[in-house]
């Protein structure tokens, strides 16, 4: 069942001089198993939107339906939402607190109806899934490097196996391999049927992995579509206050020099394939 956001508006500091309209009349659907990227300028409302979907904020107006149920409706079981949806905040490593990596990850399983063995199995599975070396699971999470901390923090959210996963700027501060490894992990989760919402400024990353991109601009949903639709017209992308990725910009330059048939390429593999095709036998 999809995530449905219907006519949602949200204000901060209501009825004070500091009142800010963070979101205005946002509507969209994310289908089951879809990978949706969310882009937009700092302060455009991205984080507000995902906090609303995660039920951490209540919209001033409008509805958010998950699996057909209004998560702010009377009688809605919030525990169901917590089981269904996992959210990884910006810099999630600041939430690590336990004495060992193992215990930090296992904390997420505390209230699940699992046997000791099942819990241990789950921790092993999830640490492996995020690429954390098991022999280091007895270390304090606070003694790890930044990249390792990030993995452990993400593992803590994945451990409970939520079906919907929300990531807020998961790539910030990771090195290039760390970024690639995270994206491959997200792609794997996506293939396994999870719904993924990911906020990022990295156009190349979202274009390479997301099915669809939503663009927010000053609290409004200003565009949505496939990466090719969003970045097909660079001038339009500019008016949406989002920068195209490097792949798209190289494609544009090659197109203008008559070296590509179409400039609307946003994925590395496709760009490389086109360049090879056009230069075969040279």
């Amino acid at each position, binding site marked *: 069942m999809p995530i449905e956001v219907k006519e949602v508006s949200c204000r901060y500091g209501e009825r004070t001089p500091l009142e800010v309209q963070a979101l205005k009349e946002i509507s969209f659907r994310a289908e089951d198993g879809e990978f949706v990227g969310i882009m937009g*300028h*700092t*302060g455009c409302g991205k984080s507000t939107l995902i906090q609303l979907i995660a039920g951490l904020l209540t919209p001033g107006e409008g509805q958010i339906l998950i699996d057909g149920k209004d998560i702010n409706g009377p009688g809605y079981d919030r525990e169901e939402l917590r089981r269904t949806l996992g959210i990884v905040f*910006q*810099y999630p490593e600041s939430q690590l607190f336990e004495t060992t990596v193992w215990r930090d990850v296992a904390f997420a399983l505390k209230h699940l109806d699992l046997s000791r063995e099942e819990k241990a199995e789950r921790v092993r599975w999830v640490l492996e899934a995020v690429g954390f070396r098991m022999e280091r699971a007895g*270390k*304090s999470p*606070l*003694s*790890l*490097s*930044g*990249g*390792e901390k990030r993995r452990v923090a993400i593992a803590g959210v994945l451990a409970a196996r939520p079906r919907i996963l929300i990531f807020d*700027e998961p790539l*910030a*501060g*990771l*090195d*290039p*391999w*760390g*970024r*690639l490894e995270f994206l491959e992990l997200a792609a794997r989760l996506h293939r396994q049927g999870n719904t993924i919402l990911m906020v990022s*400024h990295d156009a*190349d990353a979202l274009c390479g992995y997301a099915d669809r991109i939503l663009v927010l601009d000053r609290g409004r949903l200003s565009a949505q579509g496939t990466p090719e639709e969003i970045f097909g017209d660079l001038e339009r992308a500019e008016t949406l*206050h989002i*920068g195209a990725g*490097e*792949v798209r*910009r*190289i494609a544009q*330059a*090659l197109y203008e*020099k008559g*070296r590509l048939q179409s400039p609307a390429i946003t994925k*590395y593999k496709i*760009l*490389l394939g086109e*360049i*090879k095709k056009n*230069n075969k036998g*040279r």
Partner: protein
Amino acid sequence: MQAVTGKQISFTYEYDGVSNPVLEDISIEIEAGEFIAILGANGCGKSTLVRLLNGLLPLEKGELKVWNLDPRQESRLWELRRLCGMVFQNPDNQFVSSIVEEDVAFGLRNYDTPEEEIPERVGRALSLVGMQEYERYSPHMLSGGQKQRVAMAGVLAMEPEILIFDEATSMLDPQGRREVLACLKQLHEMGKTILMITHYVEEVLDADRIFLMQKGKLLKSGSPREILTDRELLTQAELIPPLAVRIYYDLKDSGILLDRCPLTNEELVEELCRLK
């Protein structure tokens, strides 16, 4: 003049009785006015290295001279920190006041700067980063790039010679990154010595030199072109080459050879257009 001279520096973190060596036998020399970018995978010791420079971490093994100071000399630690300022990753964690001008003045007041000098120095620092019109704002009302420029102003008010940026752009959107980088470039042109840690290869193209680190060691120091077009070297450092370099090698692997390895996207397009 040498801004930084480090000889055989090693550093080990102790945590719960377990020691974790992060720097091994690093020797570096940085000229005054140089712009140095430090690249390396997460956990390679970049942040540890720069924290030794202004005494945020105590130097254990090796020799280090920053400007004319030895970070071991505790009586001159404040002088060292004034000379060698640092901007961190998260702008929100760096604010101590709810008004921009007071925030920028915080360091000056800590150093007992005469009150009558403060407004001028704050004003000068804010105009260096293009934020002079925001002195009465609350930092929390600013965009990411603006916040980070205010954090820079707080450091610049101290009139440092060396500026360290520890992933200062990683939380910003593309617009904010451009703003901070433009400031950084301007400071370099003014003759400040700059050390920048980043994971974005496109940010280091203007650096005079790159220090490439791997697992606590200085793997190589060289020009951006030398370092970034060397696929094997970058693979060894567990890094991914810039896009233009990746395309060059992927084409080469499938039998399409460009005249030279491009460093920037513009060079890549130029090289591809040269193919007959």
